[in-house]
């Protein structure tokens, strides 16, 4: 796996939302809630991303329950690993930012 992988904000929040099984609209709501309303995934963007992430094997579509036509998705092991790598990268970003800007911020 490529260690220098950088996720987009949309991808990051979609993967994070899918630590629990979710359907598309659930991902939209959870992302908006987690980001305090700042990140709003649009339907076209989310839909394209879900297909692409399935193709990559980072998420999977769960079998559709009878009586429901809503597809649910869940993170795979590979997806979880990607998310952990990204978190590590983000921590470094924040740490470096704080080292240089920290004093001014305080």
């Amino acid at each position, binding site marked *: 796996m490529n260690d220098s992988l950088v996720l987009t904000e949309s991808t990051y929040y979609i993967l994070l939302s899918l630590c629990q099984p979710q359907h598309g609209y659930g991902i939209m709501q959870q992302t908006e809630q987690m980001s305090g309303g700042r990140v709003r995934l649009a339907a076209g963007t989310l839909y394209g991303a879900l297909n692409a992430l399935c193709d990559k094997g980072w998420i999977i579509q769960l079998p559709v329950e009878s009586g429901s036509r809503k*597809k649910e998705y869940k993170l795979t092991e590979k997806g979880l690993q990607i998310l952990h790598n990204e978190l590590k990268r983000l921590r470094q970003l924040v740490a470096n930012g704080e080292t240089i800007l920290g004093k001014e911020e305080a």
Partner: protein
Amino acid sequence: MERRTIRKWFWAWDFDKEEEWLENMAQNGWTLDSVGFCTYHFIKTEPGEYSVRLQYLPIAEENGEYADLMEESGAERLGRMVQWVYYRKKSEDGSFELFSDLDSRIGHLKKIARLLLIITVMNIGVGIINSCNSSIHLGWINLLCAALLTYGLGRIHGKKEALEKERRFRE
């Protein structure tokens, strides 16, 4: 309910201008209600009550899951014209965007470019065959179409490049 029909032509590569025009109409109290070939049907609404968007969406890609997602996010599907689907959303239900990042906007433009490229190549092919076999005039018409489509492709490419340039330093 007060209604109004306007006939207007937009080139496929000017879809952003078409959207802007529809959005302006909605801001002035005329909201798109249904579409036909070069025909737009509007209903009288409060100015700015709705936001209108359109998307290049081949029939094969418009499935139940996507339709559900649009509906749940508050968008109402108004109709399809060939490869384009029109939506509106009440402004009070929040901002209305079909794409929320640069990557997906670039992807949308790429799909439009792909279609234009296929039709251009087909026109060149048929144009050459027509020039050689049946009618030189028919052949010229095909080649003129191809020239126009090439111009359109250039326009789409320009929009795509502008976004890709932006993408180099932000999402």
